[in-house]
């Protein structure tokens, strides 16, 4: 059985298209209802929260996974990154009230001790530590944009797609950290033991991505 971990939520449609493009069976996956483990032919799909997907491959439960580069970075999972699918594109950015942007342009001392709300505490810590800036992290699991508005934090570190949610909460992008997209990754074990099959899938997805 060849197991692929997939993220539930907004990128599921992209994932389905990529699997189709790779020639993998997706009929049962399209009509999966509330099932979280779906089998079809010799494939098994595991549907998981986006943040958990990398761990299924890290621990060898899944041979392959589709996961955002943001969650791959945050999880720290030891995986083989095979392809950037170019889907699910957005940015990891720091956003805050307009007045805060000037402080980011000044000396590090201007933002020392800043309070940042995020669902990516490790990325936030790594990003600011690299600049020698000590911050206070407020770890939230959703509706991050509310935090500055309600006085819980000075700014946020989150993914930004169109910027609509930021604008609705009177926030602007202050600093862009990294582009984000859906990546195809493999467990370290499967990249060795099932490489022939993985390689075929990677090539098909790559052809699909480059041919778009």
């Amino acid at each position, binding site marked *: 059985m060849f197991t692929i971990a997939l993220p539930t939520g907004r990128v599921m449609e992209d994932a389905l298209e990529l699997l189709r493009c790779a020639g993998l069976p997706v009929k049962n996956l399209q009509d999966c209802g509330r099932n979280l483990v779906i089998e079809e032919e010799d494939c098994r799909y595991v549907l998981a929260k986006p943040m958990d997907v990398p*761990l299924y*491959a*890290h*621990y*060898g*439960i899944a041979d392959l996974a589709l996961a955002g580069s943001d969650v791959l970075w945050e*999880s*720290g*999972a*030891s*995986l*083989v*990154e*095979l*392809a*950037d699918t170019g889907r699910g594109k957005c940015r990891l950015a720091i956003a805050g009230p307009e007045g805060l942007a000037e402080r980011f342009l000044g000396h590090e001392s201007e933002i020392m001790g800043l309070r940042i709300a995020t669902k990516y505490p*490790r990325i936030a810590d790594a990003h600011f530590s690299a600049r020698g800036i000590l911050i206070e992290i407020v770890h939230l699991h959703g509706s991050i944009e509310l935090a500055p508005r309600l006085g819980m934090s000075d700014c946020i570190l989150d993914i930004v797609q169109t910027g609509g949610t930021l604008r609705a909460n009177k926030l602007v992008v202050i600093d862009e950290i990294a582009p984000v997209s859906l*990546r195809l990754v493999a*467990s*370290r*074990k499967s*990249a*060795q*033991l099932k*490489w*022939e099959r993985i*390689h075929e899938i990677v090539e098909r997805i790559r052809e699909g991505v480059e041919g778009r």
Partner: protein
Amino acid sequence: MSRLPRGCHNIGGDQAMVMERCRKAFLSRFSSFGYRPFQPAGLQLLDVAWNHLPGSLRSRIIPVNSSHGEPCCLRPDLTLAAVAYLASHHAPHERPLRLCYADKVFRASQRPEKDVEHFQIGAELLGWDGEGADSEIIYLLLCTMEALDIKDYTIVLGDVKLIQEALKGLGAGLASALAGALQEGAYETYRSIIQRSDIPVARRDILLALPGLKGGREVLKKARNLPGDPLPLDGLEGIVNTLEKLGFGTHIRLDLGMARELDYYSGPLFEVYVEKTGQTLGGGGRYDGLLSSYGMVGQAVGFALDLEKLASVSPKAGDGKPLLMAWSGGLPPAKALSLAQELTGLGIALELNWHSSRRTSIELARLRGYRWWADLAAEKVTNLDDEREMPLEMLSREGA
């Protein structure tokens, strides 16, 4: 409050028994080939560890101060200790030296994993200048996997010389970025660095092909057919030929893009995988550079496997659990112990029970999962599955 520090854990019960069986099988196999047991110090000087370890391990050192005020660290690596021992305890004419060990290393946890202590088994062959050392150590490792009855293991072989050759002359920054991407398994990043760089076409083709050269012996042929200067494949092919002749062909795969601590390894290298775990059980290879950093000339090859992971994939049967519980039945300790000694002399491992109540003793035997319960005073043994009773001498006659 009896909890342990985060990242540490006690191991007991069946798991400890399986680990002990694996440890014994490993040490026995290597000892029979002249590898001497090595017991390294638990603390190492911080500056020594810092100066000799590869970057990826430096960042995981756990520093402590010794009670003498010396800056130390909890032993982060056993190979380093083995090489330091060789450098300070053995004159050049005593080499090569073969060492094997089963001990703990301590490393800051690396997310998403939490453990800071790892029980490793490993072996080092230090100071041999001729051929055969790589094959010897890999062969013995494979024999150990067979002895532990682990069926689905695969050893993946590579050679850092291939990557070094492909990166030669590229410029330090570019070579380092490509090596780093390969080591992290960031193939997409690796590809995009190559595509953005101004690398001659033939070299570019080799570099792009390397991570995909995974599989059976056919990848050697594919590598030989690549354009440009030939890659140094003979050493690796020699090891594959040897292991195939020794009957391990079905357990071997190759990964010509394998990059494992490029600043540490200097030749053939390998990793061991099994179906049940996502990460490698461990690995090793040639690390001549470490030897030279201690002022010694010659080859050094070794490996380490995670004993806990190894035990988790090793069959549980025959793990040394005693056969029966032997109840003293009110006998004086000297008499009960003599009878127990007689039984163990016949190869029957047992656990003594001194409880005054026969019923409690039987209940305890059931709780512990024993099939047999013996009443030493009555010299009878009961099969706890079907309550059948028979004279103890019958079990003694049949032995374990």
